[in-house]
């Protein structure tokens, strides 16, 4: 059994490295041009954001509407550091510092507010993100509403790949650990979880901190790729965007979040040629998807090779309802 797991693990690593190498090759051959690379960067950043929010909302069941706030902390910290000391080392330092600041804030905000349930928590996190935005609007170091221009670009495919897969692996492993199981039990029934001796506040705060940390990383990657950040980029709408990816993919499904990040990027690049009605179509799609598939694309299931196999089996036997 252990051997089988090893082979599976090796297969996974090979597949990952292959993905990296292929894209890197395409980049160096210039088949992936700047436009595709920008889309790819957006997708990777959205995957990090969505997967980390999924840990908070999908797995732990804590409804957060302030994820963009954590992202902005990472973005601004990293941007300020690389503007002062432009070097790859300071980019990585800034990235981790930003993530740590975001996690710290997650801890400070999470500790009192995570006692709240459901909608109240959503509103409190929304309020927190708005406060962060307004503070950034008024600070001198962040250059207020005009925003910051970052002259150098450090985010490249290598870093994107490392941090995106890193986040996904970190969160998948967390969920499959006993801590992660505790988080899921809180989602299923908080009172029952507490009765089983799970320290619910502790696990909620842990999930919140990990989510905030990853959002900080995503923000830092964003800042050092797109050259320009301003507080309004990280407003209410950005938090909603992230939540939409999570819900569209399915709450509690990491592969769903990844799938939805790709799908939404595809939709938004298809709609690029109709700028006036882009948002209208996006809104209608959102409503229609929620009306007809409220559990999202994947529900709480994960996409895996064995799922494909069993799907194939269903088609062969033509009795889909049995499994």
């Amino acid at each position, binding site marked *: 059994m252990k051997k089988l797991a090893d082979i599976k693990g090796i297969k996974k690593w090979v597949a990952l490295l292959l993905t990296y190498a292929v894209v890197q090759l395409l980049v160096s051959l210039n088949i992936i041009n700047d436009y595709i690379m920008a889309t790819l960067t957006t997708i990777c950043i959205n995957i990090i954001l969505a997967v980390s929010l999924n840990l908070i909302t999908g797995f732990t069941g804590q409804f957060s509407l302030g994820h963009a706030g954590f992202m902005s902390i990472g973005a601004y910290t990293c941007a300020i550091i690389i503007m002062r000391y432009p070097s790859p080392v300071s980019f990585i330092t800034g990235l981790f510092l930003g993530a740590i600041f975001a996690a710290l804030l997650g801890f400070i905000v999470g500790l009192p507010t995570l006692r709240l349930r459901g909608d109240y928590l959503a509103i409190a996190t929304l309020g927190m993100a708005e406060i962060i935005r307004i503070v950034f609007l008024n600070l001198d170091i962040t250059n207020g509403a005009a925003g910051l221009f970052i002259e150098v670009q450090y985010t490249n495919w290598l870093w994107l790949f490392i941090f995106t897969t890193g986040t996904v692996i970190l969160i998948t492993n967390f969920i499959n650990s006993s801590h992660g199981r505790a988080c899921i039990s809180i989602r299923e029934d908080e009172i029952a979880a507490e009765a089983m001796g799970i320290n619910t506040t502790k696990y909620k705060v842990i999930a919140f901190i990990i989510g905030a940390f990853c959002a900080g990383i995503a923000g830092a990657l964003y800042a050092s790729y797109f050259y320009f950040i301003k507080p309004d980029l990280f407003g209410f709408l950005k938090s909603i965007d992230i939540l939409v990816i999570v*819900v569209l993919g399915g709450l509690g499904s990491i592969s769903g979040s990844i799938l939805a990040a790709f799908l939404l990027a595809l939709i938004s690049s298809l709609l690029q040629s109709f700028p006036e009605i882009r948002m209208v179509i996006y*809104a209608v799609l959102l409503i229609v998807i929620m009306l007809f598939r409220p559990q999202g694309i994947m529900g709480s299931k994960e996409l895996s090779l064995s799922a494909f196999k069993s799907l194939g089996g269903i088609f062969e036997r033509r009795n889909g309802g049995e499994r």
Partner: protein
Amino acid sequence: MEQFLQQIVNGISLGSIYALIALGYTMVYGIIKLINFAHGDIYMLGAYIGYFCMTHFHLGVIPSLLIAMAICTLLGVIIERIAYKPLRNATRIAVLITAIGVSLFLEYGTMFFVTANVRSYPPLKGILTQSFKLGNIVITAQQILIVCITVILMVFLQFIVKYTRIGKAMRAVSLDRDAAELMGINVDNTISFTFALGSALAGAAGILVGIYYNSINPLMGILPGLKAFVAAVFGGIGIIPGAMIGGYFIGTVEVMVAGYGNSMFKDAVVFAILILILIVKPSGLLGKETKEKV
């Protein structure tokens, strides 16, 4: 002292508008436990309908107000029927995402038809341009109009909720939906009626804000919507008098912060109040602690 009283007057006018929007939030939340994010956009549509009534059809303030309220009522009911009713038994988060979708649809749909430009309300005529002086405190006729209309609407709302059959049904459904259904109350109609009432009030708030601030745009509903929600939470969500108190409180605080402190931070203060109240007393000012049963 005079400046303080002047700020109070301004705060009450702004608070009236927040209170009107907050009432819609609180009623809808009370009855189906949904944060209706599209509510702020109904308010925006009310402002636009009022604008077109006044500029294109040259109607007075009161007829425009009534038309805006009527159309918003209709919109509220249609939105409820199309977007929320099919999700009655879905998870809360699915309904919330739908509400956000409706909100985006209204914002960008409006933007598509009327462009994103800021429009200004036509200048008022006659008595509405005047202002009155009490000592050194200036009270404009617009402020009096806003407060009067708000008070009339609130009294009317209280009458409906307290003394009519449908009001009784609303209270019953918000208390216990299943029990109300067993007692023969048509729950769907009652929920639609709640949306109708809330939307009418939001439409009225929209046109009043157009008169007061004189400029409207398709995204104007987002921030007042959120602040009105804060007001509703402050007073205790689901409680009608709570929304009124919360609206006036938030309006006054905002004007005070802008007047005495830094106007850039006025929104931050509102959200800080929200977080504080949620930590100290999550059920709001007038709310009662409810024990969760297993």
